[in-house]
Structure formats: C-alpha cells, structure tokens
C-alpha cells in the first residue's frame, strides 16, 4: 500500500516534533512536511500544484491559532485553489482548543473532514489513514 502524504500545519515547534514521531510510528504515512503557519503551507501547495502534482498531500493536519495566516484563513485560501487540485485532500483541524465555537466553526466548512482535539495518538493517525483508504 502506498504511503499517504501528510502535511502538518502548526506553529508549535514541540508539537511538530511530537507529531513527526507519531506519524513515523503509525507507519502509514510518508515522512510529514511541517509548516509553521498557513501562509507557508498555502505557498507550498501552490508550488507543488504547479511543479509536482504527484506530491500533493492526501491529508492535512491543520492548527487554528497561527501567526500570519491562521487555520481558518488557510481554508479560505485553499478554497480558492481547490478547483485546480485534481486530488482529494482531507483536511483535519487539530487544535488544543476545546471551545465549542471552534468546533462549530470547523463543522461549517465542507473542506474539513473532522475536528480533532490534541493530543493525537498513533491510533488516531492509523484510523485517519484507513478512513482515507476506503474511498
């Protein structure tokens, strides 16, 4: 089975370190690409779309609170280029926030598959991978 391409967008360096480890352990994914804010990720996305469409991510783990371009703004930008992307990209919101406002807001975006509350575990990542295999 082909390993899934996963991108992690979060400004927390410690989290990035941890998630890298977890992704590694789950053995379902190719090594993740870390981005420290939405802007970095959207730039990279546009880049990849033009140069190497094959390396577009299957799954994006997106934080909400980030400098420059936060999670919501990233989704807005993502929507703009969505029609150009010839691949299903599943976006998961991953936040330490358990505020109901954030959860509700996440549900309002059709691009968002699920709202995941930190911490993530190997199991969760495995589940995500298998969810995305089904279709």
């Amino acid at each position, binding site marked *: 089975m082909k390993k899934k391409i996963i991108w992690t967008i979060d400004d927390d360096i410690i*989290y990035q370190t941890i998630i890298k480890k977890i992704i590694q352990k789950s053995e379902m994914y190719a090594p993740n690409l870390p981005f420290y804010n939405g802007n970095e990720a959207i730039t990279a996305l546009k880049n990849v779309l033009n140069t190497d469409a094959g390396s577009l991510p299957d799954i994006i783990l997106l934080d909400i609170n980030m*400098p420059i371009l936060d999670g919501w703004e990233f989704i807005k930008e993502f929507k703009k280029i969505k029609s150009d992307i010839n691949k299903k990209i599943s976006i998961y919101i991953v*936040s330490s926030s358990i505020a109901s406002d954030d959860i509700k807001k996440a549900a309002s975006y059709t691009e968002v598959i699920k709202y995941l509350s930190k911490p993530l575990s190997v199991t969760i990542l495995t589940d995500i991978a298998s969810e995305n295999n089904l279709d």
Partner: protein
Amino acid sequence: MKTESNWIIITNWFAVRPRTTGFLLFLVLSIAAVSVSFLRHHIEREEEQNEMKIILANAHQKIEQSLKNCYTTSISLALTLDNNGVPQHFDTISKKLLKLNPIISAVQLVPNGVIKYIYPLKGNEAAMNLNVLGYNHLRSEAQKSIETQKIYFAGPLKLRQGGIGIVGRLPIYHKNKFWGFTAVIIKLETLLKIAGVNSPDSSKYYFQLSKKDAATAKERFFLRGNTNFSNRYNISQAISDSDWILYIIAKKPFSFYPQIVFRAVLSLIIALLFGIFTTKLLRKPQELSVLLKEQESRLLKHEMKFKSIFDQATIGFAIIDFTSIDILEANKKFYDILEYTFDEIKAKGVSNIIHLNEVDRNFLNTRTKNNNTSDYNLDKQCTTKSGRLIWINLSISPLRETDEKTNTYIVFINDITKRKKTEKRLNSSLKLVTEQNQRLLNFSYIVSHNLRSHTSNIESIISLIESAETEEERSEMMNLLKSVSTSLDETMNHLNEAVSINTNINLDSSPLNLKEYILKTQKILAKQIQLNDASLIIEVSDDTIINYNPGYLESILYNLISNAIRYKHPNRKPIITIKSYKEKEKDILEIADNGIGIDLTKNSDKIFGMYKTFHNHSNTRGIGLFITKNQVQSMGGTITVKSIPNTGSTFKITVK
C-alpha cells in the same frame, strides 16, 4: 356734578332696597292709575253730557221750527176767511199749505169750537162736527189758546180719526169777536221723526216727552221707555207754545260705573305687578352679586390652590409662547433650578438657557400641526446662572386653554443631574463589568487553549516515552518534555501577570511626568535602539503630568516601543515618534512607527489578544499587546491601533 352724585346716591338707595322700591312704585303707580281712570271717566261723562246737550238742542230746535211752521200755516189758514167769516177756497189753499208744510197731516177750521172744515177730509171724517169745547178733556187745552190768544199745541192725544197726534189751535177773532180756531193736526210720530227723537244712538241714551197735567200737576209721559229716570243723567228743555218738556236720558245708571272699578282694579293689578317685577328686578343684581362673590371666593380658593401647587411643585414649569419663544410665566422651582430670575430669563432668552434648538422647535411645530398633544421629552444639559452644569429633563406640550390653535407651550423641567450622574456611574460600571467579563472569557479561553496545548504535548510525549524502543529516543523525548515544561512555566507566568492586572482593581496612581518615563524607557531599550539603528522622536512637553500607575506606565512604554523596534521594516531604519496631546480634555499618548505594519482587515479583532502573533518572528511572544491592553484598561483608558501594512502602525492610548 353734585346733582349727578346725588342722583347716584338716590339710585343706589333704591337699588339696594328692592322691596321698599317695589312697594313705593306700586303705591305711586296705583294712585296715578286710579286717578287717571277716574279722570278719564269724568271726561267721558262730560263728553257724553255734551253730546246729549247737543242732541237735545238739535231735537228741540227742530220741534220748535216745525211748530213755528205750523203757526204760519195756521195764520195762513185764517186768511181764507172772508169778511163775513166764511172760508173761501178752503180746500185749494189747504192743499197748497199742506204741500208747503208736509209734517201737517191735516188742517181744520173750527168755528165756535166745532170742526166744520177739514182738509183732507178723506180719512178724517170722524172728526167732522166735533165740538172741541164740548168735551172736558179737549176744552181745557182749547181754552188755553183762547186765553193766551196765541197758538197752543194740545196733546198728544188720541185722534178721533185714529192715531196719536198733536193739535195746534190758533184762536181767530172776527170783528173783535171770537170766531173759532184754525187747527193743524200733526201726527206725533211725524213730529218725532223730524226731530230725530226716534233715532238717537239708542245704546247710550233715549228721549222722553212729558207734559204736566194742569189739573193734577202730575207729569205725563208720552214716549215709550222708562219714565222713572231720576237716578240717571238727564237734561230737559221746554217747548214753547205748549206745556211739553223734552228730555234726553242716559241709558246707564247715574252712580254705578263698573267700568271705573274694573279699570281701577286692573290698574292696581298692573301697578302691583310692576311693583313685584321691580322688586324682582332689583333683587336680581343683589342675587347675582351674591353669586358673583361666591364664585369669586371659590375661584380665588382654586387659584390659591393652583398657585400653591404651581409654586410648591417639585417640578419646574413655565409657559412659553412658541412663536417668539418668550417666557410668559414660570413657577418658583423653575427659577430655582436654573438660578435665573424671570427678567434674566426674558433678557437671555429661554431657549438659550434650556437649549431649545431649531430641531426641537421644528419637531414641536410639526407635532402641533398634526394635533399630536403628547409631550415631547428630552434630556438637555444646561448651565445655571452660577455656571453649574446640570442635566434637566425637559417635557414640552402644547397648552390648550381653548379649542383655538395653540401657541403656548407648557415646559416642565426636572433637575436630573443626580440621576444622570448615577446613570453615568452605572453605565461605566456596567462597561467595566462587561469588559471584565470579556477579559474573563478571554482568560478562560487562554487557559483552555494555551494550557491545553502544553498538556496535550506532555501527554503525547509521555506516551511516546512509554512506547520508545531505544534509549536515544527516550532521551530525545525527555528533552522535549523539558522544553514543554519551560514554555508551560512561561505561559503560567504570563497568565499570572494577566491575572494580577485584572485583579488589581484599585491600583495606586500618582502624578507622573510622562517625558521622564519615556526617557527612562529609552535608556532601558538603549541596546536594541542602538542595534537596530532606531531613532526616537519625542514630542512630549516637559511638564506633561499624567495620573498613572508607575509600573504600568513603564510596562506600556516598554512594550510599545520595543514592538515598534522589533517589527521594523527590513528596508528602512526604524523611526518611532512619541507624542502626547489633549483630546476632549483627555490626555492622549501616541506611539507611531514606520515598521512593517499589520493588516488590520484580517487581524483587527485579535491584535490585542493573548498569544496572537502576526509575524513569523523568532522572538514573538504574543503577550505584549495583551498585557498592554489590560494595563491601559485597568487604568480606565483605551488603546486603539491604526496601521497600514509596509507603512507603519500608530498606537493611541487614552489616559483617563
């Protein structure tokens, strides 16, 4: 003048004594009326008597005239006798005479008292050969004419030939010797007809003809009608060449005149009515004046009541003419509230004092036009005479005294300064509570989010440690755990700082020289300023003093200035301008930079939030502006930001 005043005195005397005046009037009127009715009656009687005299004289004259004519006829008849005492052409002459004197029904020649010649004979045959002197009842009267040697009218008597008549006999002497009589016979009816005796105004009076009987000296009456009229008014006249007396008699009795009584009574009643009416009339003003006095006192009472309500009211009211906006009247409270007197308000203009501007007036005019009578309520701030600034609640409504178009308004004013102050306090405390609540919410969010990010990291690390397969991996995780612990500590410190700001409600403030503090901050940041080649332009006067907590002022200045240096534009040297000025009587501190700026269209709601960073800067903590905002707010001020990306940002702090 004097008579006039006397007249007034007299008039008043009567006016205040309606009963006496009425009685006096009755008395005067009744005397006058009774006298007048008697006088009138008297005149009427006199008139009647005069009329009767004239009628009587007229009738008398006519009878006398007729009798005189008969005398002429008798003499003419005597002339028919010839020298031998034998009548010649008796019939021819008689016929002519009768034609000349038609009242005579027949003529006779009576030689030696025996009727021998009659004209016309026809109808008078019964009288032929009657010896006048042979009958007692005829002889005495016939002899009367012989005695007087004049014509004498006998009768009235029943004629042998029928009817009642009178006979005028003239004695004739032939050769100084009594020859006989010439006689004229007149029907009584004819004589009376000529005299008009039969047809006087029968409603008022009637005639009577009488003759005294020579033998009995008793008066005999010959006409129909009452013969006993001694109790009635009558006048009489004797007729010559006879013993007749012609009377004219009033039909109504002499003494009894119900008319007078009726008139007198009627006059008395009228006088009485006049008296009563006058009494009533004169009483009316008295009653009215009593009523008026009652009303007056009632009105006065009401007015006093209203006046005292008006004056003692705890609300000030004034009546205003709305075309000229002139005060017409106001109560004591109105002056008390505004501290102006009536004249001062009039001089200054009421609209200038209670600030009725054009908008209000137009509004009121429109409402009045639309017949909207509800009051117009508004709060105004105005200055009293002593310069005190007060709040008044103004309520204006059109004053309708009549149905006419209203032009006056009643204005109620109420001093609501205290209420306004309380309201303001309440509002500010509500604002404070809302703010605090907002901060609390924010804080709870921070706790839930920022702390959780650490705990979730810890959780993940621990599970990774547990599942670690190599020692190296484990020690890597331990290091990671250490850094989590450090940042958790940092977060805890920040939270502590935020909590301490928010819990310090009563912070000590003291007058601080703003410039001194700016210079102090400049000193602290000297190294950064030097490293970044930044320049500070301080446009703050040396004597600007603000009331602030010293620690907070230091912290605010440090955060804002250091931010300005940190977010410098990569292509230019940072220039930071610090200004202070007054705006709406409040001190403003402004810190402007020429840095990279912030896109506020994206970030306006989170710029002052905790852990909100906008730049991927290595030393961004996302806590500075959060702390700054909390400090400014806890000092009762506000902080706002204006920024253009790539041009710079300006932070404006309002000092309470």
